[in-house]
């Protein structure tokens, strides 16, 4: 076991997988010489060379499309897109290319690539560098989408993603890189894609959260506990495929659910979870599923404005209490 930062856990996973499999390579902006703007790939160019760790020009569209077909032809690209806000530039390669080939070519190809990116607000980075666009990628069939919140899951899920035969979109959060946690460096500790994590057991209300929102949900659970409310916090972890079994078990127990996602509300990721819960747990539900999300507007820059729009523990508490009212 070792205590490490989220960014270090990702770095470890990359180093381990690149050592294990010579077909794994990295590409992205400023990931080589500089080691990535969040230092996730620090030291890897020195260790694995410039052929396997590539600084790219600012060309997200072609980079993503190239990763898709490189993955089709014998290598395992791990692509870093610096901010999730740039995902629209990658989307044609994901929706019109990666999404379709395995099926329409009747299984002639597979595409084992990972697209790492980070989103979310709270850093005063403004409307073009603070979005969580989970829904854009989660909507695309053929893509798997994961969003680890702990360093252990960051390492375990990244290793699983790199080994997976199919595309994985790996969503990080700019405010998680410096968070610390235990990582079992001795073991492989692969975390399977498709399994949620019960961050905290509870009996009165289920709070299903993603990425950094899991931390807010845990804070909310503490606050709710003070009012004698026992909240179960579920870290969805795997946004797609969704671990419906874990969700069903929890809601069957609590009869109430709050979904927390940092993306926009309308047609957002939280909408899918709310719809799924309603569908699978209709008779169990004592109240409508509450959605706690970013309001449907751009993320403002100034601190008081940004704080007002981001989902947080207080908003989650209020939503939880609404389901219990």
């Amino acid at each position, binding site marked *: 076991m070792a205590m490490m930062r989220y960014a270090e856990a990702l770095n470890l996973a990359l180093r381990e997988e690149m050592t294990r499999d010579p077909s794994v390579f990295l590409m992205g902006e400023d990931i080589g010489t500089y080691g990535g703007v969040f230092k996730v790939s620090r030291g890897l160019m020195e260790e694995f060379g410039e052929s*396997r760790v590539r600084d790219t020009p600012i*060309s997200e569209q072609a980079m993503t499309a190239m990763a898709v077909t490189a993955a089709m032809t014998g*290598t395992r690209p791990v692509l870093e897109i610096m901010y999730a806000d740039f995902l629209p530039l990658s989307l044609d390669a994901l929706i019109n290319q990666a999404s379709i080939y395995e099926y329409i070519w009747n299984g002639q190809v597979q595409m084992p690539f990972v697209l790492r990116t980070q989103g979310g607000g709270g850093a005063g980075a403004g409307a073009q560098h603070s979005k969580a666009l989970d829904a854009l990628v989660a909507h695309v069939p053929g893509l798997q989408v994961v969003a680890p919140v702990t360093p252990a899951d960051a390492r375990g899920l990244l290793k699983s993603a790199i080994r997976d035969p199919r595309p994985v979109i790996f969503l990080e959060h700019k405010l998680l890189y410096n968070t610390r946690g235990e990582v079992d460096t001795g073991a492989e500790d692969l975390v399977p894609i498709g399994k949620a994590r019960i961050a905290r057991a509870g009996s009165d209300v289920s709070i299903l959260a993603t990425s950094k929102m899991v931390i807010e949900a845990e804070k909310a659970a503490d606050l709710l506990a003070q009012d004698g409310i026992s909240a179960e916090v579920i870290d969805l972890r795997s946004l797609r495929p969704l671990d419906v079994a874990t969700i069903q078990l929890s809601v069957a127990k609590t009869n109430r659910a709050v979904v927390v996602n940092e993306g926009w509300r309308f047609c957002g990721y939280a909408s899918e979870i709310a719809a799924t819960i309603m569908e699978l747990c209709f008779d169990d539900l004592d109240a409508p599923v509450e959605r706690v999300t970013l309001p449907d507007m751009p993320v403002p820059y100034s601190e008081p404005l940004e704080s007002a729009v981001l989902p947080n523990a207080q908003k989650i508490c209020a939503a939880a209490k609404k389901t219990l009212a």
Partner: protein
Amino acid sequence: MKNTPSLDDQIEMYRRMILVRRLEERLGALSKEGRTRGPIHRCDGQEAVGIGATAMLTDADYLTSTHRGHAHYIGKGVDVYGITAEILGRSTGLCGGRAGHMLIADAARGMIGGNAIVGAGIPAAAGMALSNQILGNGRVAMCIFGDGAAQTGIWHETMNMAALWKLPVVFVLEHNQFGLTVHSDRQGPVADLSIRAQGYAMPAEIVDGNDAVAVYRATAAMVERARRGEGPGMIEAKTYRWEGFSTSDMGGYQKPEDIAAWKARDPIEIARAALLPAVGADRLDAIAAAATAEVEQAAERALADPFPEFEPCAFTAAYSEVL
């Protein structure tokens, strides 16, 4: 002359161009009879580009194509019957009827694949070249794309990265004068799009796209260079599209005199004239007849084949998602 294809290669190119022409004609007829589905993009008159540019590639090399890829498929050695069955949506098609004529792939031949997002085949080939470079497998990747595709942003991003990293990829611009219905002189301010290769310090050559041998020579030089690790190259093959942009084209924008002038330079006739002295009319006629028969048989057989039955998508199922 350097990179001149052998006589056998030239004969094979001649045969393949006839296969393509007959296939396009047959598909045109079937479409008129309402026996095809969706738009079909014919390449009558452009055969020399797809056939000439691919004739020096091996099955290990990769090719990406466009929505107008029949000559590219056949040039890469893909079976005519498998193509025809796919276009007719049969379970015996190369992709089991799932892909359709614009998206055919045959991985065993390195043909991966057709692409109906204009421009998308360009980075696709570069990505394969990137794999080749990292794996050091000596393979080359090629993309054939249109004059319209050359105006997409992804072309620029790809040219830049390919040249920067000296990727083993060859860019073949099939300049048939039109996007769908808009003439290239209304899609960009320069007639010779390959002058843009200078902006990437990349070699480029303009060739007569109706002369398969000329296309072969120029392309073979770029392919060799790429294989030697000296980086990418670009070919601009000038040709012309005889038929509409697809079977749903209502026409009215192509000048009859242009069509006539280009038909007078039929790539098949040009190839035949070049081969006549050495090969003789009888053998060429026999080759043409055999190619015609091959397409006929492919069509008849495909038309008799069963349609596929629907099965849930493997990965959709794998994701335990509702169908």
